[in-house]
């Protein structure tokens, strides 16, 4: 296997020009898929026979919760890559991804709480999944706070990587530990091994909105990374050219 792509990814200049052709299309595809999925789910999918129409929150809740976890996984991997290979793009990625992940976790928490009210009759229960998403949110906020309070760039990079890697190691333990607390939450909607229990007209829109949100977030993160690269590489000639040539 060729490792050329890996080294290319490590170069800010290459990454910048590559991401320029991907960010907008990804974002647009994401928006369209998300729109299709949400409208389909909100207006056309049949109501759940137990939960009625409140189950329609699933079409935003599940994608967002999945992303909150995927983002954290990605942060941990990026942190590891940085600590082992000193790849320059990894801290840029962490810096750009952390706020996005935090917003995802926050939406998951809020939409979950709102969904809980009609379903369980309470806004909040100390259930395994809710608690672990709350912890996830706190972890994201910790990373962001740490990055904002340190001012030396070398230290910011290392610190964010260290805490991301630690979080990645700890996340399974946290999940395992909170499972031991009581659980009210329904099981996972999608698993790789089993066919979904929902009828297709219910899970197909969900699939759309999941894929849509992934693309949406990918586009956003690419944009944020571009900004971060410009900030960090502002002394190099290609950035000067880039800034002067393209207005926005």
């Amino acid at each position, binding site marked *: 296997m060729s490792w050329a792509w890996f080294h290319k990814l490590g170069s800010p200049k290459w990454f910048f020009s590559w991401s320029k052709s991907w960010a907008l299309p990804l974002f647009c595809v994401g928006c369209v898929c998300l729109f299709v999925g949400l409208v389909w789910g909100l207006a056309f999918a049949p109501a759940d026979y137990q939960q009625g129409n409140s189950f329609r929150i699933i079409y935003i809740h599940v994608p967002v919760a999945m992303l909150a976890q995927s983002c954290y996984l990605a942060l941990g991997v990026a942190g590891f890559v940085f600590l082992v290979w000193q790849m320059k793009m990894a801290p840029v990625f962490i810096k750009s991804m952390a706020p996005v992940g935090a917003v995802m976790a926050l939406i998951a928490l809020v939409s979950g709480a709102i969904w809980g009210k009609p379903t369980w009759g309470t806004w909040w229960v100390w259930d395994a999944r809710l608690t672990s998403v709350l912890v996830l949110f706190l972890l994201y906020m910790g990373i962001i706070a740490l990055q904002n309070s340190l001012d*030396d*760039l*070398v230290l910011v990079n290392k610190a964010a990587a260290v805490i991301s890697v630690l979080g990645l190691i700890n996340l399974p333990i946290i999940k395992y530990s909170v499972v031991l607390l009581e659980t009210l939450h329904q099981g996972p909607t999608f698993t790789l091994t089993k066919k979904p229990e929902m009828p297709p007209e219910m899970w197909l829109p969900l699939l759309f909105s999941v894929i849509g949100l992934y693309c949406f977030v990918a586009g956003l993160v690419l944009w944020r990374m571009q900004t971060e690269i410009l900030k960090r590489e502002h*002394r190099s000639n290609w950035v000067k050219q880039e800034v002067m040539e393209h207005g926005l």
Partner: protein
Amino acid sequence: MQSTASLTISNLWIERGERDLCQGLSFSVQSGEIVRILGDNGAGKSSLLKTIAGVFSPLEGKISYVGEDVTFDRSLLQKDAIYLGHSVGVKSLLTVVENLRWYCPDVSLGVLHEVLELLEITNHVDVLVKNLSAGQARRVALARLWLSNKTLWLLDEPFASLDVRGVTLLEQRIQQHVLSGGLVVLTTHHDLLTLSSRDVVLLP
């Protein structure tokens, strides 16, 4: 202490935050030599010493000590070197003797007191360092130069906050060290009174 040693820096680049320092710096130090690093504020004198000592790694370049490449693993050099930075690493909650015992645990009490007498801090042996003056605390740190038997000395502004008497003492010690085959790399704003040194100038 080794009788012949050499430190060679070749094509060294150091990155500090936003700036590149020591762009492609090369020099070497042999036994019996004093090298004085000169340069404006912010030219990277302290960073250079820290890089040699292994506090951080250079962006590019090679550091070799007694013929071995130590760029990636500085432990060979570190076992044979003393580094004194801006903050000297003297613990304010330990007494003078405890501080020196921390750094040089193998020295006998007799030698310890001899050196303290030379440095004129005998009266304060059992005083916590936080109760000493800045100059006295500096002398406690400098006492390591008398107590340990290392070849390479990396001294960042060693004369800072020393009085005239202290400066003379330290210069004598450096001279003595160099004559017995030691290597000294130092930065200073003072003019060296009795020592002759080779200068390496860092351009910003």
